[in-house]
């Protein structure tokens, strides 16, 4: 069993499916001989041929649109968008077609496609290369949004996404692509979608987060553990639809909720989690729900991007405040 990084796990999952399902194809900009700008598809074209791993011309709306066309005709395309900042030309195709075609045709045509994109800040990238706009896709009926936060979950969730009979937007937290390694068995076993993963059990506060922010959150939690604060850490994993039962159960136990995400606050996914708990878990709450998020501003260029992102101290302070409610 190999120790792999998150991006290795992404590659492994795609390779497994390419190997086992002849209908799976990869397409996107520079995914072929170049192996993707982050190397997620490195070696795959060589191994599976130019038909299965195709470079496309440069047009994201086109990539989404032809993926939909292929998917409705029996293929299982995995399309890569180079950075989330360039995903917006796909919005029309995703909301108006990918998420609708099954419903529109009462199941006659379906759209089993995956739209992969690296997202998030903190890697000193150029302008438009550090966005986190998962909420846009989470608001689209019929679209699943999935975000892994570890190599093992990247592998299992991506396999599940590819096999899912419906469209999945699979967002990869690029800051942690190579942050750490984990043993991941390349056994083709998918992890379930539509469920949260509890990373730490605790009794005092529930923390809900996803993607790269898991790391800041865990650090904050470790720090607070020394002061005797027991945090439950939930990795949302499937951003849409949300497994709110797991969250509600946890809040029932802890009575406190802090949500951490990198995206802008207003109308972010954190708002939906807060809203659900304010609806269904209100009587369990000992105090206000708190969000630690990116600000409602344009992601700053990199000299100030760390000031934009939720940091360990911002999270520690938010949890601390929650404990004093």
């Amino acid at each position, binding site marked *: 069993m190999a120790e792999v990084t998150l991006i290795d796990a992404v590659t492994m999952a795609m390779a497994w499916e390419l190997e086992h399902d002849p209908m799976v194809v990869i397409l996107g900009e520079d995914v072929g001989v170049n192996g993707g700008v982050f190397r997620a598809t490195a070696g795959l074209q060589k191994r599976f041929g130019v038909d299965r791993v195709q470079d496309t011309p440069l*047009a994201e709306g086109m990539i989404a649109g*032809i*993926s939909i066309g292929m998917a409705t*005709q029996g293929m299982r395309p995995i399309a890569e968008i180079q950075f989330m900042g360039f995903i917006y030309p796909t919005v029309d195709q995703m909301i108006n077609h990918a998420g609708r075609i*099954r*419903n529109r045709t009462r199941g*006659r045509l379906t759209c089993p496609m995956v739209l992969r994109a690296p997202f998030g800040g903190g890697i000193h990238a150029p302008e438009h290369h550090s966005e986190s706009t998962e909420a846009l896709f989470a608001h689209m009926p019929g679209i699943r949004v999935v975000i892994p936060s570890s190599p093992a979950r990247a592998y299992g969730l991506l396999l599940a996404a590819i096999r899912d009979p419906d469209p999945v937007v699979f967002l990869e937290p690029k800051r942690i692509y190579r942050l750490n390694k984990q043993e991941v068995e390349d056994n083709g076993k998918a992890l379930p979608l539509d469920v949260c993963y509890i990373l730490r059990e605790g009794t005092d506060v529930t923390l809900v987060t996803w993607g790269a922010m898991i790391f800041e959150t865990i650090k904050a939690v470790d720090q607070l553990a020394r002061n005797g604060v027991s945090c439950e850490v939930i990795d949302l994993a499937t951003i849409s*639809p949300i*497994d709110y039962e797991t969250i509600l159960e946890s809040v029932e136990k802890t009575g406190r909720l802090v949500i951490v995400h990198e995206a802008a606050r207003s109308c972010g996914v954190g708002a939906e989690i807060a809203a659900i708990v304010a609806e269904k878990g209100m009587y369990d709450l000992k105090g206000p729900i708190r969000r630690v998020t990116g600000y409602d501003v344009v992601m700053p260029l990199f000299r100030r991007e760390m000031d934009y992102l939720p940091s360990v101290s911002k999270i520690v302070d938010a949890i601390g405040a929650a404990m004093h409610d």
Partner: protein
Amino acid sequence: METIADFEVQYSQFLNPEGKPSSDIPELAKEPDALIGLYRAMTETRVFDTKAVNLQRTGKLGTYASSLGHEAAHVGIAAAMREDDVLAPSYRETGTMLYRGVRMEELLLYWGGDERGSDFADVKNDFPYCVPIATQCLHAAGAAMAFQLRGESRCAVSLNGDGGTSEGAFYEAMNVAGARNLPVIFIVINNKWAISLPIEEQTATKTLAQKAVAAGIPGIQVDGNDVIAVRHWVERALARARKGEGACLIETVTYRLSDHTTADDASRYRKKEDVEAAWKVEPLIRIRKYLTELGIWDEEKEKALLEDAADKVDIAVQKYLNTPKPPVESMFDYMYKELPEFLEEQREHAIRYADKNGGEHG
């Protein structure tokens, strides 16, 4: 200065508005049965269309986009296709869809506000009507890519209007089709108007066929009121694509004789004279004249055809009108293959309030 590339756009017509052959007629035009089949389908399309507009006027159908005047283009395209090819139409190509085997009652259901209208009983792989303009061009390209990858001898056909040629998706689809040599035919049904915008203001190009030059694929302009020309060139294009020679663009020039939809009033923005002139070159007359001249059509056959078509349409209308509302929960049941847990509560909520809501709004 050195000329490094040059391009031509050709125009083709076989039957002129008087029904006279205007150039070397292709083989097709010599097959009486085939010709009668085309004329029959065109007539049925028109009869259906007239009925649909009437249903809308009497409150029995929602907004409807008429195909009046487009019958040669619609039917010519469908007749050139093989059954296992795939069609990606816009919202107007009723004639093409009917010829492909979509049932009349299905189309009525669609325009009557019922999703089941797009669940074609007999046509399994075609795309349904597509409203967001030009998005379907990419679906056709994608379908063609699927056929190419699987080594199937099938083609995809994308239809859009003149207005649709201004959307980026149209060019993106042609470009990838050119670059990847995809078996897809892009057909622009140039009916001169995009709602109120005349083609002259839509683009500075002299033809729409020349937009193919931007994708490095062949483009041709065809008289879209001449069903023989449309069928001939679409057939040729499909044969080419099937042989692995790639995509092309066909512009079929016709005219939107109706309002844009039943919600539109074209008299606000276009001259009566122009519409009258267009009626003189409309597609049914010329093929009927040609058939008559060939001695294979007469008043009696015409009468029988019209009666037949009316009966067919009536049966479909009855089926449509007798179809009860879809169950309320159907808005949930096709969102995903399996209903996610979180939707169950919403589904129950909807059922609880079903049919209590009528008339409350506004």
